[in-house]
């Protein structure tokens, strides 16, 4: 067995001595031409494939600009109940780019989460944390209720029933010239901890925060 293997010619020298080859030539012209043709083909194919691929997947790495959006004067929001506001989250696509947030004044009696201290308003995103349907604040039940698959959240946006995997996302708020302004949201995991916004149905407690990493397109 060892003998036979020793007798086998290396495949790199197989075409040594073919007609037209020079004596002792290691890289024959035929092999050189084959390599050149393959190489040129690969370069040509890469030259249009890579830019096209980059073009298609580029948006994944593009970070979005955040703008503070004015949603109305301070007088339109109360401490104890939510007021829905509609504003443009994604410009340029008309109605489809609008989103609803439920806004109320910060209430020290309810908002005991230390992270909420200093925030003038609580603004809760209407995007359900299950698969992204729009939730609605039902006054009589004091619950956010999702029409699609029955997700239910309490006054603070924490899940109390149904399939959602984390609380409702929130928006950062500030007051500027008596106008309440919102900026794109953040997610949390029900504990006093905040994350850059994640897509719905991505749990953020335990191993979830590592399985669903933050993306360049959605930073805090």
């Amino acid at each position, binding site marked *: 067995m060892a003998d036979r293997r020793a007798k086998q010619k290396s495949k790199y020298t197989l075409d040594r001595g073919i007609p037209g080859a020079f004596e002792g030539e290691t890289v024959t012209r035929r092999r050189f031409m084959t390599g050149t043709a393959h190489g040129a083909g690969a370069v040509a194919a890469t030259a249009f494939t890579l830019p096209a691929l980059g073009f298609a997947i580029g*948006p994944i790495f593009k970070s979005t600009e955040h703008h503070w959006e004015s949603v109305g004067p301070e007088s339109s929001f109360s401490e104890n109940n939510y007021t829905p506001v509609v504003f443009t989250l994604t410009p340029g*696509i008309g109605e489809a780019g609008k989103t609803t947030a439920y806004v109320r004044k910060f209430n020290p009696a309810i908002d005991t989460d230390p992270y909420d201290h200093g925030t003038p308003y609580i603004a809760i995103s209407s995007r359900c944390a299950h698969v992204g349907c729009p939730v609605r604040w039902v006054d009589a039940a004091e619950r956010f209720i999702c029409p699609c698959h029955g997700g239910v959240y309490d006054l603070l946006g924490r899940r109390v029933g149904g399939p959602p995997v984390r609380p409702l996302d929130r928006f950062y708020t500030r007051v500027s010239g008596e106008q309440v302004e919102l900026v794109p949201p953040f997610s949390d995991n029900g504990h006093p901890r905040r994350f850059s916004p994640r897509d719905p149905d991505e749990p953020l407690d335990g191993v979830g925060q590592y399985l669903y990493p933050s993306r360049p397109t959605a930073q805090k």
Partner: protein
Amino acid sequence: MPKIPKLPAPPLPSALREPPPRPGEGNGKLGALEGARDAGITVVDWVDERTSLSGATRWILFRKIPKGTNWFYTLGSATLFAFLSQAVTGVFLAMFYRPDPAGGAYESVRHITNDVFLGQFVRGMHKWGSSVMVILVFVHMARTFFFGAYKYPRELNWVIGVVLLILTMVMGFTGYLLPFDQRAYWATIVGVNINGTGPLIGPYLSDFLRGGGEFGATTLSRFYAIHMLLVPGLIVALIGAHLYLVTKLGTTAPPWLKAEKRAELSESEV
């Protein structure tokens, strides 16, 4: 009365003689029908001489098929025709459709449905045909499974078929957004978010589908390009491979058919 033998015709000069009969039925001038057939044969021969396509046609069409072949074996062709119907109606819908998320997409679909001559019919064919195609793909797959037609040497064809199934679902998913009404929009939001639940790559996959972190201005055109350029091309290529393998490997006999023993074999066994 005995027949009197005829005398040979007197030799005539060649100019006066009738021309000898030509081969063929008309024995002379070609009729219109015959001429047309002749022209057809000439054209086909011309092409065939230069391409040898007749061999390929014979190879594809005049195959041996097993005894017991029945109506279940037409499900693949039915799926193919469903795809062709989708392709043809889709091309003509694309002539009127505008992938403009700021209202133009919905408006163009409304225009197709309400104003364009036969628009409602063609759009209906495309819309309902998509469901028909998905159903046919599954029934075809079930036929293959229950007949055991996925077994050696046809495993690769099963794999190609599964990829085609996935591509058909991608077509359904991307096409659903295009009317850009409330149902389309929210179904896509939900579908993209379900894609995002895949661990690690999920969030990036949903970013890829949306072309950004939120459903944005390019999402619709992205879905449109995937729906009418990327995936159809892949489907056509894979259907080609699928059919090649069907022709190459042949079809299977239905499982209830027992293999017949050849006479000489059973004699030698005795």
